[in-house]
Each structure stands twice: as structure tokens, then as C-alpha cells.
């Protein structure tokens, strides 16, 4: 599951090389969203600081 953003970005690169701009932008945006979702799963501990 952690590899999903990387493979999404890989497909975006393939789209860029193939001249598919809109598809590449969509894949890039989806991969960024996937990265944020994975970050939510891994940012569960409370920080030991006072803000």
C-alpha cells in the first residue's frame, strides 16, 4: 500500500513521456492525495511538545 504513490507517479512519468498532459496531471494529483492519506495513517502519536 505504501508503494501506491510511487507507482502513481511512475505512471504520471510514463504519461509525460507519451505526451499525455491531462492524464499525467490527474495521476500526479491522485498520487499526492494517496500520499496524504498514508500520512494520516502514520501521524497518530501525540507530539511531546507544547504548542
Amino acid at each position, binding site marked *: 500500500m505504501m508503494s501506491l504513490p510511487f507507482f502513481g507517479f511512475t505512471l504520471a512519468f510514463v504519461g509525460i513521456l507519451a505526451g499525455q498532459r491531462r492524464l499525467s496531471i490527474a495521476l500526479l494529483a491522485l498520487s*499526492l492525495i494517496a500520499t496524504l492519506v498514508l*500520512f494520516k495513517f502514520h501521524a497518530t502519536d501525540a507530539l511531546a511538545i507544547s504548542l
Partner: protein
Amino acid sequence: MTPALSRTLNALGLLGICAVLMVAFVDQLAFGELPCPLCLLQRAGFVGVAAALALNVRFGPRPSHYGLMILAAAVGFTVAVRQMLLHIAPGDPGFGAPFLGLHFYTWAAIVFAVVIVGAAALLLFDRQFSFDPGLPTWSGLALAALGLGLIMALGNGVSTVLECAGGLCPDNPTSYLLLQEGGLKNFFAP
């Protein structure tokens, strides 16, 4: 700034981001330091920045490409700062060995901040966005940068599958889950 100069600068930036990802790979493969989950997410941020730079290199500079670049850098910066704050208390040794006096996540936060400022600065040059129908011609630099970016994205994907199998990565990874005995069973493990 002409569109051609902008594409060259973006190609150089793409090579720079690929160099950052290669340093991380050298640390992983030569020194055996497996990336933690937050480290992997920072790598994903760098690959996202690389893809946005590649859009400028391939299709010519556009404000939307710079916007994606800033968003990808903001995602990576957020993850890096989160990891910095996890280790900010006095006496905390941090995660992993320092590199040139700073931990990788601190370097990552600095580089992401530089990307955000750099992209914002490049957005100030309007002439690069002059309409240019059709795809720009290939240059050796553009081809090398895009090829290397693709290899970095795919390489990180394969490395992450080997390390974490099909689930979420352990917080402190010590071995490649998929390379252990019976590793393929781990592929579908949570």
C-alpha cells in the same frame, strides 16, 4: 525568461531532485538504513516535485505545473516537519544517522522549502508562459532528466514493495519483508 530557458532550468531542477533521491538510495543500499514510513512519504513528495518539474520540461512551463510543484513540496514539507517535531525534544537522538550534521528529514524540510521558494520565484517571470503551440522539441538534457526521474519513481516503488510488502510499513523497519523466508505471504499482510 524565455520558455526554452525555463525548460532548461526545470530540467536542471529535476536532475537535482533525482540527485536527492539517489543519495537516499545510496544510504539505503550501501549503508543498510531502511527508510521509515515518514521517510518514504518524504521521498514520495520529492518524486511528486520531480513529476511536476517533468511536466514543465516536456510540455513547456505553465502556472498549473508550478502549482502542482508547490503542492507536492508542501506535502513533503509537512511530513518532514512532523518527523522533526517527533525528535525535537532535548536528548532525543533522532532517527537514523545524521548526514553532514543534520538528519535526512531536516535536510528534506530545507530542500522542500527551497523548492517552494524557487517555484514561487520562477512564477514571477511571465514571458516563459508565452503561448507555444505543440510539444517542444527534445533535448539531451530533457531526455536524461525525464528518464532519470522515471527510474527514480519506479525504483522507489519497487524498493517500497520489497520493504513493506502489500501493507503499511513498520515504524522501525529492520529488513525487507518480501525478501524474508515466506516473504510472498507477507505481500497481503496488513
